[in-house]
């Protein structure tokens, strides 16, 4: 809501009239802040411009540095110490795909389930339900590297003991983005008007039937957007993966529970730390590749949000 002059009809007239009356009485308009207002507007726009130029600058830098390696080899060749000029990211791309596959499989049931529970089934007066809510909000703010320590202690070693494999990386990243999915799904469920649920109940359906058949499909687009955004974040995470063994040189496609694995952001970090110039360029080209993928995914999510956004 930004401008009172947009009020329609009688309210608008009333407000405008009141304003004029007051101005007339005090014989002044709020011109004191005229120049200040213009400056303020300029300042705000400047802030936006700075923020957006940062995005452009990152893209421009990556393009300028990495443009010589934007070839098919980048995607289809694996890492190579020997054949540096044609080394690529194929293995890391596959590793990232596997990790994301696992992440999706985990976060959809866990995230949607938890959101449904908290919004539709939990008795909000019970202390343990409030504790669960608080807990999720806190988890959303835990640093990603702490999740790396968790992954190392519980998935690589400890109770699961999968070792330094893609599954460990996948589970670690899934837990990292889970709170975001839960929060986004909750928002999506909250946006569905209660009348939908109540109408269904009034017709004799059970609570679960109402939720499953009415509320969930209505909230689905919002939840899906949340999942996609979580996936987009998961693709870019390097820090926790460093700790569960992604910093490995792998020249073949990883299998989920065996062998070493790599991931796109980690391989970029790996290449950036090597002396040979070919690798520095490769790192920038990798950044470009990641940004391209992420822009596609985010655009898809935005399109989804816009297309299926319902006004109730």
């Amino acid at each position, binding site marked *: 809501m930004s401008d009172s002059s947009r009020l329609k009809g009688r309210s608008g007239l009333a407000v405008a009239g009141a304003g004029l009356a007051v101005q007339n009485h005090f014989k002044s308009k709020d011109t004191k802040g005229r120049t200040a207002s213009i400056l303020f507007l300029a300042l705000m726009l400047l802030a936006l411009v700075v923020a957006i130029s940062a995005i452009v600058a990152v893209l421009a830098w990556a393009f300028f540095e990495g443009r010589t390696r934007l070839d098919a080899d980048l995607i289809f060749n694996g890492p190579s110490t020997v054949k540096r000029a044609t080394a690529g990211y194929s293995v890391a791309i596959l590793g990232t795909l596997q990790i994301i596959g696992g992440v999706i499989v985990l976060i959809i049931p866990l995230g949607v389930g938890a959101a449904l529970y908290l919004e539709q089934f939990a008795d909000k007066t019970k202390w343990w339900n409030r504790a669960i809510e608080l807990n999720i909000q806190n988890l959303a703010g835990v640093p*990603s590297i702490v999740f790396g320590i968790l992954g190392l202690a519980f998935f690589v070693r400890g109770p699961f003991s999968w070792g330094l494999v893609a599954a460990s990386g996948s589970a670690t990243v899934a837990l990292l983005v889970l709170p975001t999915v839960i929060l986004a799904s909750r928002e999506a469920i909250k946006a569905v008007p209660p009348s939908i649920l109540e109408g269904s109940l009034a017709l004799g359906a059970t609570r679960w039937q109402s939720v499953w058949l009415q509320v969930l499909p209505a909230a689905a687009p919002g939840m899906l957007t949340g999942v996609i955004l979580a996936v987009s974040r998961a693709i870019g995470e390097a820090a926790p993966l460093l700790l569960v063994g992604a910093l490995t040189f792998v020249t073949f496609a990883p299998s989920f529970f065996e062998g070493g694995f790599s991931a796109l952001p980690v391989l970029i970090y790996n290449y950036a730390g090597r002396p040979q110039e070919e690798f520095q360029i490769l790192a920038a080209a990798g950044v470009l590749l990641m940004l391209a993928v992420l822009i596609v995914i985010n655009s898809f999510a935005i399109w989804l949000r816009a297309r299926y956004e319902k006004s109730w």
Partner: protein
Amino acid sequence: MSSTVMSERSDRTRALRSDKPRYGEKVIFGFLFITAAVSVAVTTAIVIALFQPLPGLFQEISIVEFFTATEWSPGFLKPVYGVWPIVVGTLIVVITALIVAIPLGLLSAIYLSEYAPNAVRKTIKPVLEILEGIPTVATGLFAFFWLRPFLEYLTPWLPWGGLFSTGVAGIAVGLIIVPLIASVSDDAMRSVPRSLREGAYALGAGKMRVALRVVVPAAFSGIIAAFVLGASRAVGETMIVLLVAGAGSPSLNFNPFEGIQTMTAYIASRATGEIAVGSVVYDTIFAVGALLFVITLGMNMLAIRFVKRFREVYE
């Protein structure tokens, strides 16, 4: 069994009749509860992973030294385990980040919430989110290879030292938390009831006055929550500081023009480094990790409290 008229008329509603006990639903309820409880399990696991090695560790090194000494030199010949140098590193990054992100974020939020026409708002919000969505390894490389030389070129009279700069790392981290601060502040401002604005407009106030004197103060706790959340995110950032702030000297250093190691960078480099796992030096990552966890937990709870207070006033 008594049947209502409705159920006689419609087959569908007969199928939906809920007077029979449905055990399947109880199972589903249990399943849903478990999915929610997973989050509790995750937190428990984190706490165990971080705190379990600590009793053993603090028999080898002094916990008093950990919290009071001002030199952090594990792995050196005469190691001192005082955590303050890396805490200071984190602090400098966070403060610089907030100095950058608060003006940029808040101004953007005011514009989006109070000034922007709907179409503009709908385009700009997702664009800002891109800034947040850029992988931090990319932002880190950008900041190291371009931003830092560029800033040095602009300001050669500043005492730039060495290759790393904690200040530049702070600026980069600041840039990525702008969308967070902007969107939380924007949400807070948009939740302020229309009536407050309209009252002000009715009294003849201009847009800037309404935004700055009415909306922002009204949304104040929500905005503070945004700042605290942004700061918490900055505390937890790893890749950017790893690449740009590097590792500094073991003693206390407050100079943003030099490299200083942050808590997160320490954990990442120690865990991927050459020191033997299980040694005292390696186990320091758990102590630092636990400290990090407690700090971000505290900040998040603070932010939640601010949001609650904000909601209480208006809802």
